[in-house]
């Protein structure tokens, strides 16, 4: 211990020296930083000049769901400055919307069951669809859903279908349904959505139960069943599955259809599959958040997206199931005949929605999820 104390005596000088050299180096970065800062400010002020007249619009939307080019062209046409923040699951949206003060976001993009939850909590502004010129473009089968029977709060944007894809050069036999994800043959080769409801949901389906079951025995069965998939899962990703599919980091992916389709366009060996158990789908909607500071701009934006050519542009870049009938006319048969982009009526009938759950049931799902991801 004596030796240690002795070292203490040397502290000031040694520490001083290292601080000194740290200081030198750090000062350089500051100068660089300030220069950078000026550049940054220059950039933002030029972008902001048009904003003063037309105001702004704050979007809180899914990652990679609305093409940047479309947001840019809306900005160019209207002069409204669009600020975008992203989320990756409905639950993320809810938590953030809940914790932020009202008026932070103007537009949010919840899926079906989340619309119901937000309405129930008075977190949305009523939305007068009569004021939207292009509302009639939406196909009637996508309107009046149980979560918002009169579309008093929501306007459909796209339907994301959680399908499967596999790289035929990496697996021996074709993948057919969700049950294949549990096959021990696929150890450490699967990518799944980082989404508790979607992954536990398909486990319920494979067991022949309701995707949103709250029955304790069925959930216990799901928890056990899910653990048999644990070894197979290599990556959890809700945002960029195509990158891992393309790079060959996974052989099979359970993900949103557009991601899978985009990957299959890049790599011919990648095949899209509509799962035999029925795909879980999210019908995603435009909603206006309670206390939105830019209500009129929000309505303008929704109407803009509903335009056939704009909606078609969205589908071209990010190919989801498009409920905009006028857009489908533009996209043509190449789009409408592709069941990965436009499911057949049979498939559509077998699609599964996720239900809103009570806090306790939600907690059970969360427990299973934690156990799965641990």
């Amino acid at each position: 211990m004596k030796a240690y104390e002795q070292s203490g005596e040397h502290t000031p000088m040694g520490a001083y020296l290292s601080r000194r050299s740290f200081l030198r180096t750090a000062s350089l970065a500051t100068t660089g930083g300030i220069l950078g800062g000026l550049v940054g400010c220059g950039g933002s002020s030029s972008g902001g000049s048009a904003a003063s007249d037309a105001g702004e619009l704050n979007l809180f939307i899914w990652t990679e769901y609305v093409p940047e080019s479309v947001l840019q062209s809306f900005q160019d046409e209207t002069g409204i400055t669009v600020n975008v923040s992203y989320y990756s699951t409905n639950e993320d949206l809810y938590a953030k919307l809940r914790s932020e003060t009202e008026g932070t976001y103007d537009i949010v993009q919840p899926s079906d069951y989340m619309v119901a939850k937000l309405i129930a909590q008075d977190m949305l502004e009523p939305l007068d669809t009569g004021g939207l010129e292009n509302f009639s473009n939406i196909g009637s089968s996508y309107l009046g859903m149980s979560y918002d029977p009169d579309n008093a709060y929501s306007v459909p944007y796209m339907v994301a279908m959680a399908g499967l894809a596999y790289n035929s050069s990496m697996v021996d036999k074709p993948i057919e349904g969700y049950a294949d994800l549990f096959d021990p043959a696929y150890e450490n080769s699967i990518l799944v959505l980082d989404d508790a409801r979607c992954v536990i949901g398909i486990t319920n389906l494979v067991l022949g139960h309701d995707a949103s079951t709250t029955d304790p025995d069925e959930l216990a069965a799901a928890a056990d069943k899910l653990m048999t998939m644990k070894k197979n899962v290599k990556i959890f990703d809700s945002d960029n599955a195509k990158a891992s599919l393309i790079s060959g980091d996974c052989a099979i992916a359970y993900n949103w259809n557009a991601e899978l389709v985009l990957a299959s366009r890049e790599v011919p060996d990648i095949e899209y599959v509509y799962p035999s158990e029925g795909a879980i789908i999210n019908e995603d909607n435009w909603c206006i958040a309670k206390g939105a500071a830019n209500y009129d701009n929000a309505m303008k934006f929704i109407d803009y997206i509903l335009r056939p050519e704009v909606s078609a542009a969205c589908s071209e870049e990010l190919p989801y199931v498009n409920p905009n009938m006028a857009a489908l006319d533009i996209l043509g048969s190449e789009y409408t005949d592709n069941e990965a982009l436009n499911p057949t009526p049979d498939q559509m009938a077998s699609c599964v929605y996720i239900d809103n759950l009570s806090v306790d049931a939600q907690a059970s799902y969360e427990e299973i999820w934690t156990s799965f991801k641990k």
Partner: protein
Amino acid sequence: MGKRLRGETLAAFTMVAPAALWLFVFVAVPLIYVLGLSFCGQDEFGNAVFEFTTKNYANLLNADYLQIYLRSVLIAGATTALCVAVGYPFAYIIARTSSRHKSVFYMLVIIPFWTNSLVRVYGWKTFFSGTGWLSSVLMGLGLIDAPIDLLYTTPMTVFGMVYCLFPYMVLPLYSAIEKLDGSLIEASADLGARRSETFLRVILPLTSSGIFSGSIMVFIPCLGYFFVSDILGGGNADMIGNLIERQFQSANNWPLGAALSIMLILITIVLVRAYQRMGGDMDALGV
């Protein structure tokens, strides 16, 4: 004299009050809030409501969570051990070199700091991915036939943690080793000690302060770095940080997240106490 004394009081107040107030409002109060929140329940929508309950703490004993804590501690321990193992010889070499370029060597450790840590971690991901640099080069050289698979594993998470936290180990080690008095090493050798003896009995005890402060600065942050295991670990080896992050985001269970945070604070306190016992200087952690 009375005037000066009053002046003293005013001066003392002016100097200390802003920081005291700031730290109280933005450090003490938030932590008190977190403590309070950890005893809250949830309403039907999952929002925190005050109703004194200890169920969040009872939940912490859930076997799955215990496994996550254990893994976190193991990952943080492995990270710290690797940082010491790789960093000590390195810091020793650059701190005791007689080269004129010593300061360059030192600065080369700091320069990576100015590239955002996420950007650098992503750089590794690009490097190791199936179509990444490493596989391409090795395949190009004919050393391997198929891309090698390194991403999305726990060792990869440890690798990323070591990478992010390595400088925090090297800098205190460097300070400690640099102030080591060379004549002591010579004296030890003159007295007939073998090199290993000199290292164990002279060098190591004299530089242990650097190891201690470096370890604190690596181990504790490691428990909370959720983004590394998300990016390089593929999200399938959760750590405490991921668990807490999820409670405040998708799981929307703030009371549980608060209880988990309190536990993390307790772990921190235990470690810092141990550090102080071993004679660690608290200020060394911030310099």
